[in-house]
């Protein structure tokens, strides 16, 4: 286990000691700020049934920031090791393959989660200065964050898979983006195909991230996505593990 934490510490420091991370964080916070500002603008227009949380987690800016962040934080993970050749020193040290994959995944997930921390302060400050009931209560607050964790687990694993497939970070980012957006827009099939069968509708409902966020931000905690996303994250990670081994072995 000590080896795993050594690897994890290295991956985390690679995130937090790089200027790219702060550039990403900068643009992410701008989008978050815009999202917050628009939700306030929406609520101040007149009486509304929406809470501030609900408005914040359903703006266009929120989704753009949320979706774009995955390829950017995961593209480096494996691609860079292959490009630099450091994979050779890494994998000839006494570490197991799964420890490497898991530490990279976990570091990316932790970085992703830490990016959402500032937004909590928006709500804290607002409820301190303004009206508490406008923000939302109980599950309405922690619900969306719980969902962000579950959906993040899934999308970070997609990014890991993309990064393990290539030595080029740009290609990794593009593939990651396609995978993330591909699953995000999967529900759109129902709009494109007029007479889509109920089966397709039911299946795509599992990855309907928009719908899930809509219900979670209302305070309705649906356990299905909470089981579905982590399970699929694990599946994608197992795929990543095999791709990682395969690429090393065929060299």
């Amino acid at each position: 286990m000590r080896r795993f934490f050594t690897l994890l510490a290295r991956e985390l420091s690679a995130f937090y000691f790089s200027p790219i991370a702060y550039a990403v964080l900068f643009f992410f916070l701008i989008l978050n700020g815009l999202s917050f500002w628009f939700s306030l603008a929406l609520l101040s227009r007149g009486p509304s049934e929406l809470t501030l949380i609900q408005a914040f987690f359903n703006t266009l800016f929120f989704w753009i920031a949320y979706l774009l962040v995955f390829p950017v934080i995961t593209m480096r993970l494996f691609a860079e090791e292959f490009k630099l050749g450091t994979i050779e020193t890494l994998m000839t040290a006494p570490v197991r393959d799964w420890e490497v994959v898991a530490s990279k995944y976990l570091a990316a997930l932790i970085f992703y989660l830490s990016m959402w921390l500032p937004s909590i302060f928006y709500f804290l400050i607002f409820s301190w200065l303004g009206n508490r009931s406008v923000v939302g209560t109980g599950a309405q607050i922690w619900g969306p964050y719980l969902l962000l964790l579950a959906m993040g687990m899934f999308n970070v694993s997609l990014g890991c898979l993309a990064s393990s497939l290539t030595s080029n970070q740009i290609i990794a980012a593009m593939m990651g983006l396609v995978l993330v957006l591909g699953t995000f827009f999967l529900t759109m099939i129902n709009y494109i195909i007029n007479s889509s069968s109920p089966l397709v509708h039911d299946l795509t409902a599992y990855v309907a991230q928009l719908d899930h966020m809509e219900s979670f931000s209302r305070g309705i905690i649906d356990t299905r996505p909470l089981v579905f996303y982590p399970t699929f994250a694990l599946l994608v990670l197992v795929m990543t593990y095999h791709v990682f081994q395969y690429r090393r072995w065929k060299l």
Partner: protein
Amino acid sequence: MIKVEQLTKKYAGVTGIDQISFEVGKGEIVGFLGPNGAGKTTTMRILASYMPASSGRATVAGFDVFSESLKARRHLGYLPENVPLYHDMRVNEYLRYRGALKALSGKRLKNRIGVIKELCGLREVGRKKIAGLSKGFRQRVGLAEAMIHEPDLLILDEPTIGLDPNQIRQVRELIKSLGERHTILLSTHILSEVEATCSRVIIINRGRIEASDTPENLVNQLRTSGLLRLEVKSGSEDPIPHLTEISGVREVRPVSNGEWLCFEIRIEANSDPREQIFQLAVRRQWVIRELSKERATLEDAFVELTHTDR
């Protein structure tokens, strides 16, 4: 320390190494030679458990490199070709990370980093970023990393590539001094380096082992003909017809003209007609200023064993 049996590696239809077998004993410094693409790096990567072989078996310190890979890896330090390093890390930070990864901790880790930095001459660059280091320093960081956990076996893939002559000498001295405590398998293209450091040489070509012996024995077994140098003053006489008559002389080639004539004389293998040449000169009253036999080098042995258009 290393035992390789019938090791084969095939890449998508191409055979990288073909049923090679060899052993390296404890305390040996073995040079691994061969032309580019002969299978040196492949063999080293398999020994370092970086990738599995297609068939055959290899053990490091008694542990199978595939089935007991983690145990085998604990006993070896591996320096890959081109020395891959994380450019964003500082030297101290990198050594600490790699040491921890190799199960060192606390006082012992700190101790080892100090010792290894001293040994590799890294004291003054400890706080520098690896991206800003020269090639020579990076090479030394790579070496330091490979032996930070005091492995029994060091596998070094071209440790002196891209270094200047002074640095090559330093690294060579370092490797020599390490040989007292560690077993070393190193690959290189610089043959003088092998002659200077290695107790044994394995020559590999097209995935097969061509020879495995001490550098001296390899040179002595050469089948190629030797070369004599002769510098002589023969007056108006032309010495070439006289010289070619001597048995054992294959070809006489004039190198320079003038009062003193210079010749390169190619002789049959295992013959030494220097005595006859001397007596010829005495008989014809020539004056000899130089008569020497050029020593065959490991380079000749290498070329003979790995020459491709055979």
